[in-house]
């Protein structure tokens, strides 16, 4: 074995190495020369001596390192090739969406149930008794016409009793009456649900929308209690130290009645476009349950009192999500729905 022989082997190796196509083949060539050719070269060393042994040994070692370096760069190359482009988009499963009104309603329900309220339900198609009479709306009171009610066509409607005359409920308050009849005090309920108004639609008025009604009846339930419960609710809902304020108002089924404003969580009462520069947002109608409403539900108003409130879910969702047209909620437009 001469130094020239090693050169020949090296040339042969290079020829073979370069004629390969795959990384796997190249590895195989390296392996072959390392294990077969080189080991026979090293084996032949023992037959040599002196200067030629050192010379051939050196050449053999150089060749070995050459193969190793080839192998190494090959390895690097394969590693390089297996590296992922992490900026390529992933394969996404298809996920639908939940309606924004469902989402807000659920958040409200969670907060109230933590405060001991029970979620109650009632029919969307109501009768006049529960929608009006039981709630102290007087017969022929102008407020009955104000509410722009969807009355259901019925034969000989005039002859029917108010419990038979059907309509689409104009508020969730009838459930107050229904629930109190079945369950005596003390009670704490909320009633989320769809309500209806027979009026022309525009960006802030829909013919159907959602309300969350609340009712708490017990011994000595007071305006101060209402303020505390609502304060807790709104601080949790708006995740901040919002304040509430009550202003006088009128509803037939509460006395005293108030509008409830919440301090604007966006500008912190400084005034912004969301709160019309007032620092406050009108958010719910409320009041102490009218004694006649308690009486209608067979609850003694001298023994029990309570507060009731009702808020528009669509309106709060619109404020929170900066939705400028309430009609989008009922459009079924996937360009809208898929955002949630």
């Amino acid at each position, binding site marked *: 074995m001469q130094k020239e022989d090693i050169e020949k082997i090296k040339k042969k190796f290079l020829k073979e190495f370069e004629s390969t196509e795959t990384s796997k083949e190249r590895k195989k060539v390296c392996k072959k020369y390392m294990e077969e050719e080189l080991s026979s070269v090293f084996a032949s060393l023992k037959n040599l001596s002196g200067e030629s042994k050192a010379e051939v040994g050196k050449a053999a070692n150089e060749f070995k390192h050459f193969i190793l370096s080839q192998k190494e760069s090959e390895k690097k190359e394969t590693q390089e090739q297996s590296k992922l482009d992490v900026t390529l988009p992933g394969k996404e499963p298809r996920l639908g969406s939940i309606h924004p009104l469902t989402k807000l309603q659920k958040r409200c329900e969670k907060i109230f149930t933590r405060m001991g309220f029970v979620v109650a339900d009632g029919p969307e198609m109501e009768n006049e008794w529960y929608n009006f009479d039981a709630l102290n709306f007087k017969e022929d009171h102008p407020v009955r016409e104000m509410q722009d009610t969807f009355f259901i*066509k019925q034969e000989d409607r005039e002859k029917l009793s108010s419990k038979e005359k059907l309509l689409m409920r104009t508020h969730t308050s009838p459930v107050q009456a229904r629930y109190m009849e079945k369950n005596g005090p003390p009670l704490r309920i909320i009633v989320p649900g769809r309500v209806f108004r027979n009026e022309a639609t525009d960006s802030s008025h829909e013919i159907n929308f959602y309300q969350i009604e609340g009712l708490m009846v017990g011994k000595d339930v007071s305006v101060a209690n209402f303020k505390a419960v609502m304060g807790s609710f709104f601080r949790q809902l708006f995740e901040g130290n919002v304040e509430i304020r009550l202003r006088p108002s009128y509803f037939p089924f509460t006395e005293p009645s108030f509008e409830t404003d919440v301090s604007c969580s966006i500008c912190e009462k400084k005034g912004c476009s969301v709160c019309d520069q007032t620092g406050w947002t009108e958010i719910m109608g409320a009041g102490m349950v009218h004694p006649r409403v308690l009486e209608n539900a067979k609850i003694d108003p001298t023994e029990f009192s309570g507060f009731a409130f009702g808020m528009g879910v669509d309106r709060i969702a619109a404020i929170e999500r900066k939705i400028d047209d309430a009609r989008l909620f009922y459009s079924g437009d*996937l360009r809208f729905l898929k955002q949630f």
Partner: protein
Amino acid sequence: MKFSYNFLQSFFKEKLPTPEELASLLMMHFFEVEEVKKVGKDYVLDIDILSSRAGDCLSHMGVAREISAITGMKYEWPNTDIKSGKTEIEDQISVNVRNACSRYVLSGVEGLNVKKSPAYIQNRLRTCGLKPINNVVDIVNYVMLETGQPLHAFDAEKIEGEKISVRYARKREKIVTLEEKRLELNESVLVISDKQSAIGVAGIKGGIVPEVDENTKTIYLEAANFDPKVIRRGSRDIGIRTDASLRFEHGVPLEFAKIASDRVVSLITKIAGGRAMKGRIDQSFEEEKEREITFDAEEVRNILGTEVPLKKMEKILRALEFKVQRNESSFSVKIPFFRKDVERKEDVVEEIGRIYGYENIEPCQPKESIVVSQEKEEENIEDLCKNMWQGFGFSESYNYSFINETGASFYQKDNLLEVEKPVSLEFKYLRPSLLPELLRNLKENEKTFEEVMIFEIGKIFYKSSNNSAKEEKKLGIISSSDDFYSLKGKINVFLSNLFVGDISYSSYEKEDIFDGLRSATVSLNGEVIGNFGEISEKTRNKLKIKSKAVIADFDFERLLEFYKETKTYEPIARFPSVIRDLSVLVFGETRYIEVAEKIRKEGGKTLKELTLFDVYEGEELGKNRKSFAFRLYFQDKGKTLSAETINKLQEKIINALDEVSGWKVRKK
């Protein structure tokens, strides 16, 4: 209603707070002020007077009283002093009230001069949105704004006969209004009439005949109280709403007729000259009783949840003109005649609370105990369903509860509930199903999206066979990216994950929104819970829907009955299962279920699971033939199955299948 700041100031000697300050005080203690705006040297405050206080507060006097109670400033009632002449009004004219009028006051002024009214009256009218006309008409309007009592002045010389009547209009009776608008009346419209004809629509609009003009010298002044219901109906029937009709609709306190009448006569004689006729005609058909309410301060504290000082309560009530008698903490109050809204002690508590200020009530958590509900949390199950369909790629939609004629055309009209006078024909019927609106969703969205996957949970309404109205909750699904089988797969996962019961499917076979041949009815434990399948060609053509979509319709309430949170645990098998594949050649019309049931029956308990992995219909199988490829999983709870046992069982299954005429297990 629009209020003039200067007008309000006229009730006080002290200077009022600035218009902005006043607006914010009113908002916190009275009603919402929607706008404050400068008008010339005056300001207009637009206050939203709610119906409970329309009787006394659609007037500057009423609001002045509120301001007085809120600020503690003293206010004075307007001057109603009259110096009468010699002419007795009762010698001049008589009044005959026949219908719908609880009080009629008529006064007269003679020898007056009609000209422009003083600037302050004109300006205040303008601030409140009224147009000045002449001194007599302006004063009449001014006093309406002042007291809330609508009045009307007639030129005495233009009245035929010496009699004024209040009566219902005759059928098709005609009248021309002050604006020269011709009206044809019906018999439920109340009119003021002279001997000849109607000279005014009572409480709504004056007629042109007895109009007060620059030549008028003598007037009769009407201050009446008409039945609110009659005015409301009349105003609706003739399509005219006025400042007067608005007030009458809400009811005006009886006493105001006389007070306002005197006030007008007092102002006219001062401003337009002339002499007041002596006396007045005053016919009253009702009497208002003074009401008295007693309560204890403790009751106020219980409702408000705060202690209002006794003296403070007394002061508030007196400022609102309640007559208060107090013995320690026990109150007895007489309600002023103009406060018809105050009927019981809770109403009095509201007066105390709002004037005292709700901002002065410290929040306090309720002490009342919490009652744990025993009711089924249906809402939670609904959430689980929604989340699952969202997971399948569907978006939740909220649609209207109403449908139009097109939507209704899919249903028997007799079964639909119809709305009285809907604002739009889009909302003519209550939806008897979620499907029409979901189809609309598909149609609208397929313009933008290739794949439309939508679901909705909502109420539907219909008339049942015994003619009673029904309301039910449904789950509706529509998808243009699924076919029958992929939707069926999702439905099966949905049902088997959330509900307990044997699921079975049968052909739908009716032809409606669904394609009867390509749709199925789903049952749980034999009870029908819904339908799903392809939309019929007819439906798609009718609605011009492009995509070949599938839909589903579930009875949600019935579905809920099958919900079970805690399914029983089935022990994990300790011995391995063995898999065998089997391919069965059958007729083209043979249904999968027939073959599968046969295999299950023969396989018995040891056949743990059976899946179908291929259905093949190739020409080489022969005409009208197909083959089902099954995978069978054998497993025993107690031991490892030997090859021999399985071979025997497989043999048994194959024999049973082969025995069926025309079926053949294909040997590999």
